[in-house]
């Protein structure tokens, strides 16, 4: 749609700055009414988790996130979207993923950001493994059933 920027997608080891990412969507334009920024953080699970190790399938991750972003742009009249996903070792309280979405109206921005996160969770090729406090290597994180249910919400509107 008119004014829609090409989504920005990055997969990287280093940390990101949510303020820089969301400000970049907004800068130099006055047609944006709503800017939603989501940051996913590494929880310490009640003090038991030291870090998450995130394995990924690099080439596919970029391609898959770009597909998900294109899907969001086709569904909502967005004025910009940025998705950044980290891999490697992320300490408790560290940032894992960012989704920033700009739109004229807040309903579109909230829905698109929520959709992007649901689809990233269930489609982007990343796998988390826990590193426990004390040094032990924990298990691979199991997918939450809630994530599939959350992603399925968007399918009713497809058909």
């Amino acid at each position, binding site marked *: 749609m008119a004014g829609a920027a090409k989504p920005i997608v990055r997969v990287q080891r280093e940390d990101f700055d949510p303020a820089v990412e969301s400000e970049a969507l907004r800068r130099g334009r006055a047609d944006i009414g709503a800017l939603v920024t989501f940051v996913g953080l590494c929880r310490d699970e009640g003090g038991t988790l030291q870090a998450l190790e995130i394995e990924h399938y690099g080439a*596919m991750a970029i391609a898959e996130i770009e597909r998900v972003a294109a899907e969001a742009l086709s569904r909502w009249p967005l004025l910009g979207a940025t998705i950044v996903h980290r891999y490697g070792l992320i300490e408790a309280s560290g940032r894992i993923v960012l989704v920033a979405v700009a739109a004229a109206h807040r309903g579109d921005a909230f829905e698109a950001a929520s959709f992007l996160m649901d689809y990233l969770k269930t489609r982007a*090729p*990343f796998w988390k*493994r826990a590193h426990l406090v004390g040094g032990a290597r924990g298990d691979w994180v199991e*997918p939450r059933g809630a994530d599939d249910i959350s992603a399925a919400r968007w399918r009713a509107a497809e058909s």
Partner: protein
Amino acid sequence: MKALYFAWVRERVGKSEEEIAPQASVATVDDLMTWLAEKDEAYAHAFEKKSVIRAALDRAHVSHDARIAGAKEIAFFPPMTGG
């Protein structure tokens, strides 16, 4: 074709990638998992529950009945837990 393994599939197989050359009768993703599972105990362990394993052909998700002919790269992995 190149086969890639991720997360616990990679750990069980014992490698992250390899070249494979299945015979022509191995037509689908499901066939290929069965073929791999017959290689040795490590592969058998990795692919013992095929239904939980996800696959991608040339970097796009596919179902287990997808045909593998013509693909350059196939990846096997557990359900994703990113985001």
